[in-house]
């Protein structure tokens, strides 16, 4: 791989100064004169019909300006549910946290007091929390048509993926391994709570959103507010994380816009941290039944999976369970049920369908290796994917190198021993997992300009939710323009000054928008070569909107993670003592910020493995662990050092061969930790997270017999 001038060099973020001096302005930092403040009232019941809402006392409170409820507002949040009509305020309410009313008032205190003065008469309804329960014939109906959420064609059927003949696959097997795994609802828990500040200038709506994609957010707002898209401006200059749950527009954007319209004043709406946990989506919980066929030599013959994803009562997310494609296997059958429940809505969280799927998949594969008395690394080297779904070549694949180089850095050969080798109170074990994530190509835009002094403006519609997208775009522009980085100014985060960008979801910005920057730079360089630099206050401009497509190839990023844990068999505490993350994401544009992505993603995966969850009370249907402490989000003290190994494949597509990075970083981490626990103890916890109760339960299996 050739060395480049700007791309590939560790570079601090171009906006780092703002981030370390308090100068970065996030949505809730924006205040304008006469701005009203809004809060939302939420259902205390998991399922209830609203008989009546009495607003008289709240409306009589001085300082209250506008109140929205389902009685007076029928705006549909179209991206909040892709199957059913999901209003901003629904009746019946279908989960504890479903919005009932929004109040705009002169300040926060008045708005909060007004919430307390709203009287809601609820008729509580039966509820169901678990997807398998929700599919039983006598389960409460959550959406008209039943609890099996329809597919894209509107049919209430599970999603089925078949390859080969699963029965033949099992016939060909010498051994069959099967088990049931379960994963909980987990909150994205980004640090910045949901906020939106909306105001109208005549018939133009301006929204300071907290969004991962200003362009999609704008299109969605225009659609749902029923106004032309050119009448909406979305601004998001700094964004405090989302990890998938700030895609598109959100109900708080629409509520703020409507409150502002009715009150004829700017409105800032903020959700509390508790609301963020109970009423905004997290990772979908799953139940997965795996059955795997293996020959005596360790070669896979069949993988069968039947999975149930709890989507909450609205179908915001895809709900699939992914990971199987990381194995080369001739016979596959996957059946996935996306099911409505009365828990909080679930949708995208960093590699939405993957870490929970790979946890279960890699657990059962680990069992297979154990059953065959094989080194789990050897098992994976035998069976990792050579062609996508055994058919399509990859544009590039560094998966084998991720396995080999990652294992070498980790010291796998020295550290791995058969399961339960330690006899003391504290048992050490190692585990691994592998994964892949699509790195597609597609449309995005960029506009570049040059002035008479050779300074370049790069207009890209990124929001930079923490990914360093701005810096990535600047590096790609500097490379493509053969200009020093300090000649590049990035203009971002405002739909009035930036063209369409794909949005920071699906880990696509580097590849999609980066390619657009390269195309525009080529055009601009050509103009400069023909005409020279512009004179005086002129500038040359180049637009690009490439839409590259792959032909007969699959393009993926690959990863393998390795973990060592110590298990205290008396307390049930698990400590990660070593962790190596190997990644093939093609060429790394900025090794400094890319390392941050890997370390962060892997750490989040470790939390998912060990202690994070939104726990529900089965009798009341209420969430019990809303908040950072109770949901046991990772802290400094929990986070081990993550060693990063880059496997930079030379991919012929994407900007300078870059592939996707942000999301793959979490995928195999969960499985690596869970498998390390198994290796340490010889026991398997089949339900995430591996909290002490489950650890001690697993360790005491058979002890009382």
């Amino acid at each position, binding site marked *: 791989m050739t060395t480049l001038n700007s791309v590939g060099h560790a570079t*601090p*973020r171009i906006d*780092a*100064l*703002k*981030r*370390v*001096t*308090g*100068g*970065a302005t*996030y949505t*809730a*930092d924006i*205040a304008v004169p006469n701005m009203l403040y809004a809060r939302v009232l939420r259902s205390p019941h998991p399922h209830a019909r609203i008989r009546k809402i009495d607003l008289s*006392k709240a409306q009589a*409170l*001085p*300082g209250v300006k506008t109140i929205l409820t389902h009685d007076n507002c029928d705006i549909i949040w179209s991206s909040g549910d892709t199957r059913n009509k999901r209003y901003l305020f629904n009746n019946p309410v279908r989960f504890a946290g479903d919005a009932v009313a929004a109040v705009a008032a*002169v300040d926060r*205190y*008045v708005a909060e*007091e007004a919430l*307390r*003065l709203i009287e809601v008469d609820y008729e509580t309804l039966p509820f169901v929390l678990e997807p398998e329960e929700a599919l039983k014939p006598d389960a409460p109906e959550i959406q008209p048509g039943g609890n099996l959420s329809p597919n894209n064609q509107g049919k209430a059927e599970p999603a089925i993926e078949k390859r080969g003949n699963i029965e033949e696959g099992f016939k060909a097997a010498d051994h069959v391994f099967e088990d049931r795994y379960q994963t909980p609802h987990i909150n994205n*828990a*980004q*640090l*910045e*709570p949901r906020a939106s500040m909306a105001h109208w200038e005549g018939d133009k709506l301006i929204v300071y959103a907290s969004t991962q994609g200003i362009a999609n957010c704008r299109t969605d707002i225009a659609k749902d507010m029923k106004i032309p898209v050119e009448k909406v401006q979305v601004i998001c200059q*700094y*964004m*405090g*994380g989302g*990890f998938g749950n700030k895609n598109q527009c959100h109900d708080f954007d629409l509520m703020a816009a409507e409150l502002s319209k009715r009150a004829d004043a700017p409105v800032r709406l903020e959700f*509390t*941290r508790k609301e963020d946990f109970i009423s905004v989506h997290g990772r979908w919980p799953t139940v997965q039944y795996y059955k795997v066929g293996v020959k005596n030599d360790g070669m896979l013959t069949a993988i069968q999976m039947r999975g149930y994803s709890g989507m909450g009562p609205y179908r915001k997310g895809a709900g699939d369970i992914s990971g199987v494609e990381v194995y080369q296997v001739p016979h596959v059958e996957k059946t996935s049920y996306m099911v409505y429940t009365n828990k909080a809505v679930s949708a995208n969280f960093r590699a939405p369908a993957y870490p929970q799927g790979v946890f279960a998949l890699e657990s059962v594969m680990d069992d297979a290796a154990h059953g065959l008395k094989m080194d789990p690394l050897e098992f994976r080297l035998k069976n990792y994917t050579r062609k996508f779904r055994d058919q399509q070549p990859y544009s590039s694949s560094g998966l084998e190198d991720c396995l080999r180089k990652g294992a070498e850095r980790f010291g796998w050969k020295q550290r791995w021993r058969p399961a339960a080798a330690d006899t003391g109170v504290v048992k050490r074990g190692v585990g691994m997992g592998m994964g892949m994530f699509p790195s597609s190509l597609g449309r995005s835009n960029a506009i570049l300009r040059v002035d008479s002094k050779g300074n370049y403006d790069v207009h890209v519609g990124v929001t930079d939710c*923490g*990914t*360093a997208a701005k810096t990535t775009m600047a590096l790609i522009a500097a490379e493509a323009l053969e200009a020093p980085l300090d000649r590049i100014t990035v203009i971002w985060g405002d739909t009035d000054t930036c063209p369409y960008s794909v949005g920071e979801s699906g880990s696509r910005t580097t590849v999609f928008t980066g390619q657009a920057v390269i195309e525009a730079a080529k055009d601009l360089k050509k103009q400069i070569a023909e005409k020279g630099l512009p004179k005086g206050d002129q500038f040359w401009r180049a637009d690009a909107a490439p839409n590259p497509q792959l032909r007969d190839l699959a393009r993926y990023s690959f990863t393998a993670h390795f973990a060592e844990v110590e298990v205290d068999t008396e307390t049930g505490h698990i400590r990660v003592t070593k962790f190596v993350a190997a990644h093939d994401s093609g060429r790394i544009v900025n090794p*400094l*910020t890319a*390392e*941050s*992505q890997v*370390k*962060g*993603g892997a*750490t*989040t995966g470790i939390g998912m493995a060990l202690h994070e969850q939104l726990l529900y009370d089965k009798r009341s249907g209420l969430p019990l662990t809303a*908040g*950072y*402490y109770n949901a046991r*989000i*990772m*802290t*400094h003290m929990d*986070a081990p*050092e*993550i060693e990063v190994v880059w496997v930079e494949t030379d991919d012929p597509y994407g900007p300078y061969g870059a592939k996707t990075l942000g999301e793959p970083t979490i995928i195999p981490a969960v499985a690596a930790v869970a498998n390390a626990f198994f290796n340490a103890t010889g026991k398997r916890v089949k339900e995430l997270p591996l909290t002490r109760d489950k650890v001690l339960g697993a360790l005491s299996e058979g002890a009382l017999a």
Partner: protein
Amino acid sequence: MSRKSSSKISRRHFVEGTGAGLVAAATVAPLKGQAPGADVKNRTQGAPSSPPRTKIKFTINGAERGMEVEDHWTLVELLRDHLGLTGSKIGCDRGECGACTVLLDGKSVYSCSQLGVWIDGKSIITIEGLAKNGRLDPLQQAFIDHDGPQCGFCTSGQLMSAKALLMHNPHPSAEEVRAGMTGNICRCSNYNHYVEAVLAASAAGPSTGSGGNAA
């Protein structure tokens, strides 16, 4: 209103203090947190609410300042909404995440869990006061060099916790850094880089005296 010295705010003290605050507030707005009832009329028929106010004096980022505050304002509210210092963030407003961390007389505190009136006679340093005369604190430079901030929302709090840590323990071990900053959550989970940065700043030399009247 309890006016005990808050130079050593323990969690227990905070809970007691908040209790006192609620009692005081209850004399004005009896229905706070309760179901609506007859007394609502007293409140709703009167003029817009005017909570009790107190005149206080304090030092903010080195400058002396006097102002009248509403007694129910939290410190972070005072900073963000009334002094325009929005660098301190509200991530949870309940003492869990640390994004609002500031220095109160040289000690790191969650400013969401302090009342504004408690800073009477005290010195506050926020993220906006960390750089001195246009020069970044070594911690800020190290945070840039080691790519501490990803989304950046927790960064102000991480910096202020790190500042307090280094003022009291100029050469901490990695484990001490983790322990000292564990009240500051980073959901981008860039903990490794934050710890690296603090250790680098510590190695770079003593932190300059921007911590106000710290011990």
